[in-house]
């Protein structure tokens, strides 16, 4: 199955590129372009590529652009994506670090729905924010929020996690309440992978499984560990796994990454990736 990852590189001079990814010597390679794997979309794409290799399927393709936060790169990417969607042959998309923009989100979503045969739609990071903000959250197959983002999805008035109202405290013991609230207001995708001390795999407001071991506390502080989780899930999805199993195995494998690497909070996600193959093998021993 083919898969397209859509996101940004934190460099305004980086061009808009589309192509299959590979990982060599700790760098993400797309054609002649070499990108550092530190966090964000390069970390997600590298993890997805390594996971796909472990599962013996083709690596994903990426649509990447440089954007350090001004949004012009993201808008250029959105416009290009709308243009090429009719020619794309893909089973799914993973949307990631992109400047939230309701107008362009809607153009992309409508173009996909009009032109493509029901691809799987995964949204994380900025694109998940705008998917919720647009009111089209239920059109997505999977969101991957952490606890703070889950509160944001649960707050029907919040346009961004920054404005989540105070009564929705980031209290991990109340995750089930936040999930129910997000579904009640149609601010959740069909499946949720809620990341936290305990990970929740959810479909249509029903908790299908939880994962809480192994627990390596330092992982919370390491930038890119959420991106690596979404990357592993993307790898499993591109290999044809059903969404709940892909999420469950992804949550297990991401935790084993931490256990095997034994990190402290100063590690980078790139330090963890050499352990991915072994982590995925270990996770397969704990199916849903």
């Amino acid at each position, binding site marked *: 199955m083919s898969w397209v990852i859509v996101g940004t590189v934190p460099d305004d001079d980086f061009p808009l590129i589309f192509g299959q990814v590979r990982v060599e010597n700790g760098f993400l390679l797309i054609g002649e372009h070499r990108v550092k794997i530190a966090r964000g979309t390069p970390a997600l794409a590298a993890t997805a590529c390594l996971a796909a290799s472990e599962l013996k399927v083709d690596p994903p393709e990426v649509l990447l652009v440089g954007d350090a936060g001004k949004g012009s790169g993201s808008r250029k990417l959105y416009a290009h994506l709308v243009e090429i969607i009719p020619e794309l042959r893909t089973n799914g998309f993973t949307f990631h670090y992109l400047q939230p923009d309701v107008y362009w989100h809607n153009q992309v979503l409508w173009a996909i729905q009009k032109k493509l045969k029901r691809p799987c739609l995964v949204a994380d990071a900025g694109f998940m924010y705008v998917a919720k903000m647009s009111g089209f959250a239920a059109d997505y197959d999977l969101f991957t929020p952490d606890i703070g983002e889950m509160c944001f999805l649960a707050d029907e008035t919040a346009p961004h*996690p920054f404005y989540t109202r105070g009564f929705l405290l980031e209290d991990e013991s109340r995750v089930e309440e936040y999930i129910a609230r997000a579904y009640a207001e149609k601010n959740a995708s069909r499946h949720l992978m809620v990341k936290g001390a305990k990970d929740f795999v959810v479909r249509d407001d029903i908790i299908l499984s939880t994962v809480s071991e192994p627990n390596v506390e330092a992982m919370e502080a390491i930038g890119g560990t959420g991106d690596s989780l979404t990357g592993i899930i993307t790898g499993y999805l591109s290999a044809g796994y059903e969404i709940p199993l892909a999420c469950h195995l992804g949550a297990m494998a991401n935790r084993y990454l931490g256990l095997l690497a034994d990190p402290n909070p100063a590690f980078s996600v790139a330090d963890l990736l050499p352990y991915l193959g072994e982590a995925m093998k270990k996770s397969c021993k704990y199916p849903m």
Partner: protein
Amino acid sequence: MRFLKSIFSRNSEKPKGVSERGIIVFHHTSEVIKAESLLREAGLAVLVKGPPPEIQTGCDMVIEFPIINQLQAVDILKRHRIEPVQVAAVQDYLLEPVSLFNVKDFGDFLMVRAANMKITVDKRDLVIVNVSGGGCPDVPFLAEQMVGKKLLEAPEPASHGQTLCGYSLHLAYEEMKRRCLG
């Protein structure tokens, strides 16, 4: 029950009269961050808030300010070549930014979270060792600028950030400074 009632009754119990506060709407979040500093430096009581739903388009923020100072505020911005999209009086409630911090002590490392952004510092030498969370594209950029630098030597997120995630990181950074440096 009273607590829940107080939350859900907010819409129906709007204060009487006309608000004395105004909002300044900008094209881009980066302008909000710059404008906030400029207006604060000029002594204006300003707050960054979420815009009313009808003008939300993206990673939006507006500046709430005393409407009586509108001329002064607009003049300050004009002198710094910042042109607001709109200046209006507040007649409805604005969204409040997150104000709570979540702090985790890892022994040698301290992590502070504000909304969706986390910053982690090595307590022994005050070097920023990680920045995580967030979803807007300036987060990976800010992380590259800050990680590996000492807390007081790293660029402030507010001076290089462009979005609400950048602003959340700035709040976490300020709280970290308060905790580590007093």
